[in-house]
Protein backbone atom coordinates (compact mmCIF):
# COMPACT_ATOMS: atom_id res chain seq x y z
CA UNK A 1 0.00 0.00 0.00
CA UNK A 2 1.03 3.60 -0.50
CA UNK A 3 2.90 4.76 2.61
CA UNK A 4 1.02 8.02 2.57
CA UNK A 5 -2.33 6.22 2.90
CA UNK A 6 -0.89 3.96 5.58
CA UNK A 7 0.14 6.96 7.65
CA UNK A 8 -3.25 8.66 7.21
CA UNK A 9 -5.10 5.48 8.09
CA UNK A 10 -3.19 5.36 11.36
CA UNK A 11 -3.63 9.05 12.09
CA UNK A 12 -5.45 11.28 9.63
CA UNK A 13 -4.39 14.36 11.59
CA UNK A 14 -0.71 13.90 10.82
CA UNK A 15 0.31 17.19 9.23
CA UNK A 16 1.60 17.35 5.66
CA UNK A 17 4.85 18.70 7.12
CA UNK A 18 5.29 15.66 9.36
CA UNK A 19 4.31 13.22 6.62
CA UNK A 20 6.86 14.84 4.34
CA UNK A 21 9.56 14.17 6.93
CA UNK A 22 8.44 10.57 7.40
CA UNK A 23 8.49 9.67 3.71
CA UNK A 24 11.32 11.98 2.59
CA UNK A 25 9.09 14.21 0.51
CA UNK A 26 8.03 17.86 0.64
CA UNK A 27 4.87 19.27 2.26
CA UNK A 28 3.70 20.61 -1.10
CA UNK A 29 4.14 17.22 -2.77
CA UNK A 30 2.29 15.47 0.07
CA UNK A 31 -0.54 17.98 -0.05
CA UNK A 32 -0.86 17.52 -3.80
CA UNK A 33 -1.03 13.74 -3.49
CA UNK A 34 -3.65 13.91 -0.74
CA UNK A 35 -5.71 16.29 -2.86
CA UNK A 36 -5.51 13.88 -5.76
CA UNK A 37 -6.66 10.98 -3.56
CA UNK A 38 -9.57 13.11 -2.42
CA UNK A 39 -10.41 14.15 -5.97
CA UNK A 40 -10.62 10.60 -7.35
CA UNK A 41 -12.44 9.40 -4.25
CA UNK A 42 -9.80 7.03 -2.84
CA UNK A 43 -9.96 9.08 0.33
CA UNK A 44 -13.64 9.49 1.13
CA UNK A 45 -13.33 11.48 4.33
CA UNK A 46 -11.74 11.94 7.74
CA UNK A 47 -13.40 11.47 11.10
CA UNK A 48 -12.69 10.88 14.77
CA UNK A 49 -12.82 7.39 16.25
CA UNK A 50 -15.17 8.00 19.16
CA UNK A 51 -15.66 5.58 22.00
CA UNK A 52 -19.47 5.82 22.20
CA UNK A 53 -19.45 4.11 25.59
CA UNK A 54 -17.93 7.29 27.02
CA UNK A 55 -20.85 9.44 25.94
CA UNK A 56 -23.93 10.08 28.02
CA UNK A 57 -26.30 10.29 25.07
CA UNK A 58 -28.26 7.16 24.23
CA UNK A 59 -27.48 5.51 21.00
CA UNK A 60 -28.20 2.01 19.84
CA UNK A 61 -26.35 0.13 17.15
CA UNK A 62 -27.71 -3.01 15.59
CA UNK A 63 -26.05 -5.43 13.21
CA UNK A 64 -28.61 -6.75 10.77
CA UNK A 65 -28.25 -9.70 8.43
CA UNK A 66 -30.48 -9.36 5.42
CA UNK A 67 -31.39 -11.98 2.83
CA UNK A 68 -32.55 -10.55 -0.46
CA UNK A 69 -33.82 -11.89 -3.73
CA UNK A 70 -31.19 -11.15 -6.37
CA UNK A 71 -32.52 -9.69 -9.61
CA UNK A 72 -31.84 -10.92 -13.15
CA UNK A 73 -30.47 -7.54 -14.11
CA UNK A 74 -27.84 -6.22 -11.68
CA UNK A 75 -27.98 -8.96 -9.02
CA UNK A 76 -27.94 -7.36 -5.57
CA UNK A 77 -26.93 -3.87 -6.63
CA UNK A 78 -30.27 -2.13 -7.07
CA UNK A 79 -31.71 -3.27 -3.78
CA UNK A 80 -28.39 -2.78 -1.97
CA UNK A 81 -28.17 0.80 -3.18
CA UNK A 82 -31.68 1.45 -2.05
CA UNK A 83 -31.03 0.09 1.44
CA UNK A 84 -27.70 1.85 1.81
CA UNK A 85 -29.40 5.18 1.10
CA UNK A 86 -31.22 5.10 4.46
CA UNK A 87 -29.62 7.54 6.94
CA UNK A 88 -29.96 4.93 9.67
CA UNK A 89 -27.59 2.58 7.82
CA UNK A 90 -24.01 3.55 8.72
CA UNK A 91 -22.07 0.62 7.24
CA UNK A 92 -23.18 -1.95 4.74
CA UNK A 93 -21.49 -4.87 3.00
CA UNK A 94 -22.41 -7.59 0.50
CA UNK A 95 -21.44 -10.89 2.08
CA UNK A 96 -20.81 -14.48 1.10
CA UNK A 97 -22.52 -17.16 3.20
CA UNK A 98 -25.96 -17.60 4.75
CA UNK A 99 -27.18 -14.07 4.19
CA UNK A 100 -26.47 -11.44 1.58
CA UNK A 101 -26.19 -8.00 3.14
CA UNK A 102 -24.73 -7.00 6.48
CA UNK A 103 -25.95 -3.66 7.83
CA UNK A 104 -24.84 -1.58 10.78
CA UNK A 105 -27.82 0.50 11.79
CA UNK A 106 -27.82 3.30 14.32
CA UNK A 107 -30.78 4.75 16.19
CA UNK A 108 -31.50 6.74 19.31
CA UNK A 109 -33.47 3.96 20.99
CA UNK A 110 -34.10 0.26 20.65
CA UNK A 111 -37.63 1.07 19.60
CA UNK A 112 -36.42 3.35 16.83
CA UNK A 113 -34.16 0.66 15.39
CA UNK A 114 -36.88 -1.98 15.73
CA UNK A 115 -39.35 0.15 13.85
CA UNK A 116 -36.82 0.88 11.14
CA UNK A 117 -36.38 -2.87 10.62
CA UNK A 118 -40.04 -3.82 10.74
CA UNK A 119 -41.55 -0.85 8.93
CA UNK A 120 -38.96 0.30 6.44
CA UNK A 121 -36.40 -2.44 5.83
CA UNK A 122 -38.36 -5.68 5.81
CA UNK A 123 -41.18 -4.16 3.79
CA UNK A 124 -38.91 -3.52 0.79
CA UNK A 125 -39.73 -5.73 -2.17
CA UNK A 126 -37.03 -8.35 -2.50
CA UNK A 127 -36.03 -8.42 1.19
CA UNK A 128 -36.67 -12.03 2.17
CA UNK A 129 -35.70 -11.98 5.82
CA UNK A 130 -33.75 -10.04 8.46
CA UNK A 131 -31.89 -11.03 11.62
CA UNK A 132 -31.16 -8.24 14.09
CA UNK A 133 -28.44 -8.24 16.76
CA UNK A 134 -27.97 -5.34 19.14
CA UNK A 135 -24.45 -4.31 20.05
CA UNK A 136 -23.72 -4.20 23.78
CA UNK A 137 -20.19 -2.85 24.09
CA UNK A 138 -17.35 -1.78 21.78
CA UNK A 139 -13.98 -3.32 22.53
CA UNK A 140 -12.19 -2.40 19.34
CA UNK A 141 -13.05 -0.02 16.53
CA UNK A 142 -11.19 0.14 13.22
CA UNK A 143 -8.15 -1.54 14.74
CA UNK A 144 -8.07 0.67 17.82
CA UNK A 145 -8.69 -0.81 21.27
CA UNK A 146 -11.26 1.28 23.15
CA UNK A 147 -9.42 0.72 26.44
CA UNK A 148 -6.72 3.35 26.66
CA UNK A 149 -3.32 2.14 25.55
CA UNK A 150 -1.29 0.43 28.18
CA UNK A 151 1.54 2.43 29.71
CA UNK A 152 5.05 2.02 28.36
CA UNK A 153 6.66 0.05 31.15
CA UNK A 154 10.03 -0.52 29.49
CA UNK A 155 13.19 0.58 31.26
CA UNK A 156 13.59 4.26 30.38
CA UNK A 157 17.21 3.79 29.39
CA UNK A 158 18.74 0.52 28.26
CA UNK A 159 21.85 -0.39 26.28
Amino acid at each position, binding site marked *: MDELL*DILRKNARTSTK*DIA*KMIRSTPAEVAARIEEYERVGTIRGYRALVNEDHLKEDRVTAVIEVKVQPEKEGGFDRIAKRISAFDEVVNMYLMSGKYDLLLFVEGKTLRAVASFVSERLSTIDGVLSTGTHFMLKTYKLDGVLMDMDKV*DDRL*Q*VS*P
Partner: protein
Amino acid sequence: MNGKSRVAAHVKALPFSGIRKFFDIVAQRKDVISFGVGEPDFDSPRAVRDVAMDSLERGETHYTSNRGDPALRKAISRYVARQFGATYNPDTEILVTVGVSEAIDIALRAVTNPGDEVIYHEPCFVSYRPTIIMAGGTPVCVETRREDQFRLTRAMLEKAVTPKTRVLMLNFPCNPTGAILLKKDVEDISDFCVKHDLLLLTDEIYAELTYDSKHFSFIAVPGMKERTIFLHGMSKAWAMTGFRIGYACAPAEISENLMKLHQYAIMSAPTTGQMAAAEALDHGDAAVAEMRAEYNRRRNYLIAAFAEMGIPCHTPAGAFYAFPYIGDLGISAEDFAMRFLEEKGVAVVPGDAFGACGAGFLRCAYATSMDNIREGMKRMAEFVAEIRAEKKSG
Protein backbone atom coordinates in the same frame (compact mmCIF):
# COMPACT_ATOMS: atom_id res chain seq x y z
CA MET B 1 38.92 -9.10 56.12
CA ASN B 2 41.74 -6.70 56.95
CA GLY B 3 39.92 -3.96 55.05
CA LYS B 4 40.52 -5.81 51.81
CA SER B 5 37.72 -6.18 49.32
CA ARG B 6 36.29 -9.63 48.88
CA VAL B 7 35.66 -8.86 45.23
CA ALA B 8 38.20 -10.22 42.79
CA ALA B 9 40.60 -7.52 41.69
CA HIS B 10 39.99 -7.98 37.95
CA VAL B 11 36.22 -7.66 38.44
CA LYS B 12 36.59 -4.71 40.74
CA ALA B 13 38.73 -3.01 38.11
CA LEU B 14 35.95 -3.36 35.55
CA PRO B 15 34.13 -0.03 35.08
CA PHE B 16 30.35 0.20 35.35
CA SER B 17 28.57 0.74 32.07
CA GLY B 18 28.31 4.47 31.29
CA ILE B 19 24.68 3.94 30.46
CA ARG B 20 23.96 2.60 33.93
CA LYS B 21 24.78 5.91 35.59
CA PHE B 22 22.46 7.72 33.23
CA PHE B 23 19.75 5.14 33.79
CA ASP B 24 19.74 5.87 37.53
CA ILE B 25 19.30 9.58 36.92
CA VAL B 26 16.49 9.14 34.39
CA ALA B 27 14.73 6.61 36.61
CA GLN B 28 14.22 9.31 39.26
CA ARG B 29 12.12 11.40 36.91
CA LYS B 30 8.53 10.99 35.84
CA ASP B 31 6.92 11.64 32.47
CA VAL B 32 10.16 11.52 30.55
CA ILE B 33 10.09 11.24 26.77
CA SER B 34 12.86 8.73 26.31
CA PHE B 35 15.08 8.25 23.29
CA GLY B 36 17.24 6.11 25.54
CA VAL B 37 15.52 2.77 25.19
CA GLY B 38 17.51 0.13 23.34
CA GLU B 39 14.57 -2.18 22.72
CA PRO B 40 11.50 -2.13 20.48
CA ASP B 41 8.39 -0.29 21.68
CA PHE B 42 6.25 -2.89 19.90
CA ASP B 43 5.05 -5.89 21.85
CA SER B 44 6.06 -9.28 20.45
CA PRO B 45 3.78 -10.32 17.56
CA ARG B 46 0.44 -11.74 18.71
CA ALA B 47 1.01 -15.18 17.15
CA VAL B 48 4.35 -15.46 18.93
CA ARG B 49 2.78 -14.69 22.29
CA ASP B 50 0.00 -17.19 21.57
CA VAL B 51 2.51 -19.94 20.90
CA ALA B 52 4.26 -19.09 24.19
CA MET B 53 0.97 -19.26 26.07
CA ASP B 54 -0.02 -22.54 24.40
CA SER B 55 3.35 -23.97 25.36
CA LEU B 56 2.79 -23.02 29.00
CA GLU B 57 -0.74 -24.39 28.79
CA ARG B 58 0.68 -27.74 27.72
CA GLY B 59 2.98 -27.69 30.73
CA GLU B 60 6.20 -27.30 28.75
CA THR B 61 7.99 -25.88 31.76
CA HIS B 62 11.07 -28.09 31.82
CA TYR B 63 14.63 -27.91 30.53
CA THR B 64 15.18 -28.41 26.85
CA SER B 65 18.23 -30.08 25.35
CA ASN B 66 21.35 -28.07 26.31
CA ARG B 67 21.82 -27.03 22.71
CA GLY B 68 18.25 -25.84 22.50
CA ASP B 69 14.98 -27.42 21.46
CA PRO B 70 15.62 -29.49 18.29
CA ALA B 71 12.62 -27.99 16.48
CA LEU B 72 13.92 -24.47 17.16
CA ARG B 73 17.40 -25.39 15.97
CA LYS B 74 15.89 -26.64 12.73
CA ALA B 75 13.89 -23.43 12.40
CA ILE B 76 17.08 -21.42 12.96
CA SER B 77 18.90 -23.46 10.34
CA ARG B 78 16.10 -22.86 7.80
CA TYR B 79 15.91 -19.17 8.60
CA VAL B 80 19.64 -18.51 8.45
CA ALA B 81 19.87 -20.37 5.14
CA ARG B 82 17.05 -18.43 3.48
CA GLN B 83 17.93 -15.07 4.96
CA PHE B 84 21.74 -15.06 5.05
CA GLY B 85 22.76 -17.72 2.60
CA ALA B 86 24.70 -20.22 4.74
CA THR B 87 23.60 -23.65 5.87
CA TYR B 88 24.29 -24.82 9.42
CA ASN B 89 23.71 -28.29 10.79
CA PRO B 90 21.12 -27.99 13.57
CA ASP B 91 22.64 -30.90 15.49
CA THR B 92 26.27 -29.82 15.53
CA GLU B 93 26.59 -26.17 14.51
CA ILE B 94 23.76 -24.27 16.21
CA LEU B 95 23.45 -23.36 19.89
CA VAL B 96 20.47 -21.55 21.43
CA THR B 97 21.54 -18.99 24.05
CA VAL B 98 20.05 -16.55 26.53
CA GLY B 99 20.05 -13.58 24.19
CA VAL B 100 23.04 -12.61 22.08
CA SER B 101 24.65 -11.28 25.27
CA GLU B 102 25.27 -14.78 26.56
CA ALA B 103 26.48 -15.86 23.14
CA ILE B 104 29.06 -13.04 23.05
CA ASP B 105 30.30 -14.00 26.49
CA ILE B 106 30.74 -17.72 25.86
CA ALA B 107 32.09 -17.17 22.36
CA LEU B 108 34.85 -14.89 23.62
CA ARG B 109 35.67 -17.22 26.47
CA ALA B 110 35.73 -20.20 24.14
CA VAL B 111 38.18 -18.75 21.63
CA THR B 112 40.44 -16.41 23.60
CA ASN B 113 43.72 -17.50 25.14
CA PRO B 114 45.26 -15.16 27.74
CA GLY B 115 46.83 -12.21 25.99
CA ASP B 116 45.15 -12.80 22.64
CA GLU B 117 44.21 -9.55 21.02
CA VAL B 118 40.59 -9.02 20.03
CA ILE B 119 39.91 -6.18 17.63
CA TYR B 120 36.52 -4.49 18.02
CA HIS B 121 35.09 -1.16 16.91
CA GLU B 122 33.85 1.80 18.90
CA PRO B 123 31.34 3.33 19.42
CA CYS B 124 29.84 -0.06 20.22
CA PHE B 125 27.49 -1.96 22.45
CA VAL B 126 28.47 -1.44 26.09
CA SER B 127 29.40 -5.05 26.86
CA TYR B 128 32.02 -5.61 24.17
CA ARG B 129 35.16 -4.32 25.84
CA PRO B 130 34.39 -5.68 29.34
CA THR B 131 33.47 -9.07 27.93
CA ILE B 132 36.77 -9.30 26.05
CA ILE B 133 38.62 -8.43 29.24
CA MET B 134 36.66 -10.98 31.30
CA ALA B 135 37.54 -13.61 28.72
CA GLY B 136 41.23 -12.88 29.31
CA GLY B 137 41.71 -11.17 25.97
CA THR B 138 43.30 -7.83 25.22
CA PRO B 139 40.79 -5.45 23.64
CA VAL B 140 42.09 -3.48 20.66
CA CYS B 141 39.73 -0.73 19.67
CA VAL B 142 39.28 0.65 16.17
CA GLU B 143 37.43 3.95 16.10
CA THR B 144 34.80 4.47 13.43
CA ARG B 145 34.05 7.99 12.27
CA ARG B 146 31.16 10.13 11.16
CA GLU B 147 32.99 10.97 7.89
CA ASP B 148 32.76 7.27 6.98
CA GLN B 149 29.14 6.95 8.15
CA PHE B 150 30.68 4.93 11.02
CA ARG B 151 31.51 2.10 8.63
CA LEU B 152 34.57 0.02 9.34
CA THR B 153 37.14 -0.22 6.58
CA ARG B 154 39.89 -2.64 5.88
CA ALA B 155 42.48 0.14 6.07
CA MET B 156 41.51 0.87 9.70
CA LEU B 157 41.81 -2.79 10.57
CA GLU B 158 45.19 -3.21 8.91
CA LYS B 159 46.52 -0.54 11.28
CA ALA B 160 45.25 -2.40 14.34
CA VAL B 161 46.29 -5.95 13.53
CA THR B 162 49.38 -7.50 15.18
CA PRO B 163 50.79 -11.03 15.32
CA LYS B 164 48.83 -11.46 18.56
CA THR B 165 45.45 -10.67 16.99
CA ARG B 166 43.21 -13.70 17.11
CA VAL B 167 39.64 -12.45 16.85
CA LEU B 168 37.76 -9.68 15.03
CA MET B 169 34.50 -8.79 16.71
CA LEU B 170 31.85 -6.85 14.81
CA ASN B 171 28.33 -5.53 15.18
CA PHE B 172 26.69 -4.26 11.98
CA PRO B 173 24.06 -2.87 11.76
CA CYS B 174 25.53 -1.12 14.75
CA ASN B 175 24.21 -0.10 18.12
CA PRO B 176 24.68 2.86 18.84
CA THR B 177 25.56 4.43 15.47
CA GLY B 178 23.00 2.80 13.17
CA ALA B 179 25.86 2.20 10.72
CA ILE B 180 25.84 -0.73 8.30
CA LEU B 181 28.51 -2.33 6.15
CA LEU B 182 28.08 -2.41 2.40
CA LYS B 183 28.65 -5.65 0.50
CA LYS B 184 32.04 -4.39 -0.59
CA ASP B 185 33.07 -3.65 3.02
CA VAL B 186 31.99 -7.13 4.07
CA GLU B 187 34.04 -8.70 1.28
CA ASP B 188 37.09 -6.56 2.06
CA ILE B 189 36.94 -7.32 5.77
CA SER B 190 36.47 -11.01 4.99
CA ASP B 191 39.66 -10.89 2.91
CA PHE B 192 41.39 -9.22 5.81
CA CYS B 193 40.29 -12.05 8.16
CA VAL B 194 41.58 -14.67 5.75
CA LYS B 195 44.87 -12.87 5.19
CA HIS B 196 45.60 -12.63 8.92
CA ASP B 197 43.95 -15.95 9.74
CA LEU B 198 41.50 -14.36 12.20
CA LEU B 199 38.36 -15.77 13.68
CA LEU B 200 35.36 -13.50 13.08
CA LEU B 201 32.78 -13.00 15.79
CA THR B 202 29.88 -11.19 14.14
CA ASP B 203 26.86 -9.98 16.09
CA GLU B 204 24.18 -9.38 13.46
CA ILE B 205 21.26 -8.91 15.83
CA TYR B 206 19.91 -5.96 13.79
CA ALA B 207 20.24 -7.72 10.41
CA GLU B 208 16.54 -7.42 9.51
CA LEU B 209 16.43 -3.72 10.40
CA THR B 210 18.11 -2.07 7.44
CA TYR B 211 16.26 0.59 5.48
CA ASP B 212 18.05 1.50 2.30
CA SER B 213 19.53 -1.84 1.26
CA LYS B 214 19.24 -5.49 2.27
CA HIS B 215 21.68 -6.71 4.90
CA PHE B 216 24.65 -8.65 3.56
CA SER B 217 26.07 -11.14 6.04
CA PHE B 218 29.67 -12.26 6.45
CA ILE B 219 28.53 -15.88 6.30
CA ALA B 220 27.40 -15.31 2.71
CA VAL B 221 31.03 -14.75 1.67
CA PRO B 222 32.59 -18.01 0.40
CA GLY B 223 35.17 -19.33 2.84
CA MET B 224 33.98 -17.25 5.80
CA LYS B 225 31.58 -19.70 7.43
CA GLU B 226 34.54 -21.86 8.47
CA ARG B 227 36.14 -19.03 10.45
CA THR B 228 33.05 -17.27 11.75
CA ILE B 229 30.87 -17.37 14.84
CA PHE B 230 27.61 -15.86 13.67
CA LEU B 231 25.41 -14.44 16.42
CA HIS B 232 21.78 -13.52 16.07
CA GLY B 233 18.63 -13.49 18.15
CA MET B 234 14.97 -12.65 18.45
CA SER B 235 15.11 -9.49 20.55
CA LYS B 236 15.20 -6.70 18.03
CA ALA B 237 13.51 -7.49 14.72
CA TRP B 238 10.78 -9.61 16.35
CA ALA B 239 10.47 -7.37 19.41
CA MET B 240 11.10 -10.30 21.76
CA THR B 241 13.64 -8.85 24.22
CA GLY B 242 11.92 -10.30 27.28
CA PHE B 243 11.94 -13.83 25.87
CA ARG B 244 15.76 -13.82 26.05
CA ILE B 245 16.54 -15.95 23.02
CA GLY B 246 19.68 -15.68 20.94
CA TYR B 247 21.74 -18.17 19.01
CA ALA B 248 25.25 -18.89 17.82
CA CYS B 249 26.07 -20.61 14.53
CA ALA B 250 29.64 -21.87 14.27
CA PRO B 251 31.77 -24.69 12.90
CA ALA B 252 31.19 -27.94 14.83
CA GLU B 253 34.39 -27.87 16.87
CA ILE B 254 33.75 -24.35 18.11
CA SER B 255 30.05 -25.01 18.60
CA GLU B 256 30.77 -28.04 20.74
CA ASN B 257 32.99 -25.97 23.00
CA LEU B 258 30.48 -23.12 23.18
CA MET B 259 28.03 -25.79 24.27
CA LYS B 260 30.33 -26.86 27.09
CA LEU B 261 30.39 -23.35 28.58
CA HIS B 262 26.68 -22.87 27.99
CA GLN B 263 25.83 -26.18 29.60
CA TYR B 264 27.83 -25.51 32.76
CA ALA B 265 26.64 -21.92 33.16
CA ILE B 266 23.08 -21.94 31.87
CA MET B 267 21.79 -25.50 31.26
CA SER B 268 19.37 -24.39 28.58
CA ALA B 269 17.75 -21.20 27.31
CA PRO B 270 14.21 -20.44 28.59
CA THR B 271 11.82 -23.05 27.21
CA THR B 272 8.83 -20.76 26.63
CA GLY B 273 11.02 -18.35 24.72
CA GLN B 274 12.37 -21.13 22.55
CA MET B 275 8.87 -22.21 21.50
CA ALA B 276 7.97 -18.61 20.72
CA ALA B 277 11.19 -18.12 18.73
CA ALA B 278 10.47 -21.05 16.42
CA GLU B 279 7.09 -19.53 15.54
CA ALA B 280 8.67 -16.12 14.93
CA LEU B 281 11.36 -17.52 12.62
CA ASP B 282 8.96 -19.61 10.57
CA HIS B 283 6.02 -17.20 10.35
CA GLY B 284 7.21 -13.79 11.50
CA ASP B 285 8.35 -12.12 8.27
CA ALA B 286 5.22 -10.01 7.83
CA ALA B 287 5.33 -8.73 11.41
CA VAL B 288 9.00 -7.82 10.99
CA ALA B 289 8.26 -5.99 7.73
CA GLU B 290 5.49 -3.99 9.35
CA MET B 291 7.71 -2.88 12.25
CA ARG B 292 10.55 -2.08 9.88
CA ALA B 293 8.28 0.19 7.82
CA GLU B 294 7.28 2.05 10.97
CA TYR B 295 10.90 2.41 12.15
CA ASN B 296 11.82 3.74 8.74
CA ARG B 297 9.27 6.56 8.95
CA ARG B 298 10.51 7.51 12.39
CA ARG B 299 14.10 7.41 11.18
CA ASN B 300 13.30 9.65 8.23
CA TYR B 301 11.50 12.05 10.55
CA LEU B 302 14.45 12.23 12.94
CA ILE B 303 16.96 12.86 10.17
CA ALA B 304 14.77 15.65 8.78
CA ALA B 305 14.31 17.12 12.25
CA PHE B 306 18.07 17.18 12.94
CA ALA B 307 18.66 18.78 9.56
CA GLU B 308 16.14 21.52 10.40
CA MET B 309 17.98 22.17 13.67
CA GLY B 310 21.31 22.32 11.87
CA ILE B 311 22.56 19.32 13.86
CA PRO B 312 24.81 17.11 11.71
CA CYS B 313 23.73 13.48 11.60
CA HIS B 314 24.87 10.76 9.24
CA THR B 315 22.03 8.74 7.77
CA PRO B 316 21.72 5.68 10.00
CA ALA B 317 21.00 2.86 7.57
CA GLY B 318 20.20 0.18 10.13
CA ALA B 319 19.11 -0.74 13.68
CA PHE B 320 16.88 1.86 15.39
CA TYR B 321 19.38 4.48 16.50
CA ALA B 322 20.32 7.89 15.20
CA PHE B 323 23.69 9.28 16.29
CA PRO B 324 23.65 13.06 15.82
CA TYR B 325 26.71 15.22 16.48
CA ILE B 326 26.25 18.10 18.93
CA GLY B 327 29.96 18.87 19.39
CA ASP B 328 29.59 22.20 17.55
CA LEU B 329 27.25 23.53 20.24
CA GLY B 330 30.07 24.01 22.72
CA ILE B 331 28.63 21.59 25.26
CA SER B 332 29.67 18.05 26.08
CA ALA B 333 27.31 15.19 25.25
CA GLU B 334 26.97 14.38 28.91
CA ASP B 335 26.09 17.97 29.89
CA PHE B 336 23.69 18.14 26.95
CA ALA B 337 21.97 14.95 28.04
CA MET B 338 21.75 16.02 31.69
CA ARG B 339 20.39 19.46 30.94
CA PHE B 340 18.04 18.25 28.21
CA LEU B 341 16.56 15.85 30.76
CA GLU B 342 16.40 18.48 33.52
CA GLU B 343 15.05 21.33 31.45
CA LYS B 344 12.92 19.59 28.83
CA GLY B 345 12.16 16.16 30.26
CA VAL B 346 13.70 14.30 27.34
CA ALA B 347 16.25 11.49 27.71
CA VAL B 348 19.03 10.84 25.18
CA VAL B 349 22.20 8.87 25.86
CA PRO B 350 25.63 10.59 25.65
CA GLY B 351 27.64 8.98 22.86
CA ASP B 352 30.71 8.41 25.03
CA ALA B 353 28.78 5.75 26.97
CA PHE B 354 29.64 3.62 23.92
CA GLY B 355 33.33 4.43 23.77
CA ALA B 356 35.52 7.52 24.05
CA CYS B 357 35.18 8.39 20.36
CA GLY B 358 31.42 8.76 20.89
CA ALA B 359 32.14 12.05 22.68
CA GLY B 360 30.12 14.87 21.14
CA PHE B 361 27.42 12.51 19.89
CA LEU B 362 24.04 11.49 21.26
CA ARG B 363 22.36 8.15 20.81
CA CYS B 364 18.70 8.68 20.01
CA ALA B 365 16.75 5.44 19.80
CA TYR B 366 13.65 5.76 17.64
CA ALA B 367 12.00 2.72 19.19
CA THR B 368 9.32 5.01 20.52
CA SER B 369 5.99 6.30 19.23
CA MET B 370 5.69 8.88 16.47
CA ASP B 371 3.92 11.18 18.96
CA ASN B 372 6.92 10.98 21.31
CA ILE B 373 9.32 11.56 18.46
CA ARG B 374 7.42 14.62 17.26
CA GLU B 375 7.21 16.14 20.75
CA GLY B 376 10.78 15.13 21.66
CA MET B 377 12.19 16.76 18.51
CA LYS B 378 10.15 19.90 19.11
CA ARG B 379 11.70 20.18 22.56
CA MET B 380 15.14 19.42 21.19
CA ALA B 381 14.83 22.24 18.66
CA GLU B 382 13.93 24.63 21.52
CA PHE B 383 16.79 23.36 23.65
CA VAL B 384 19.35 23.60 20.87
CA ALA B 385 18.24 27.19 20.18
CA GLU B 386 18.65 28.03 23.85
CA ILE B 387 22.14 26.50 23.98
CA ARG B 388 23.15 28.47 20.89
CA ALA B 389 21.80 31.69 22.41
CA GLU B 390 23.78 31.03 25.60
CA LYS B 391 26.92 30.41 23.61
CA LYS B 392 26.43 33.64 21.70
CA SER B 393 25.83 35.78 24.77
CA GLY B 394 28.33 33.94 26.98
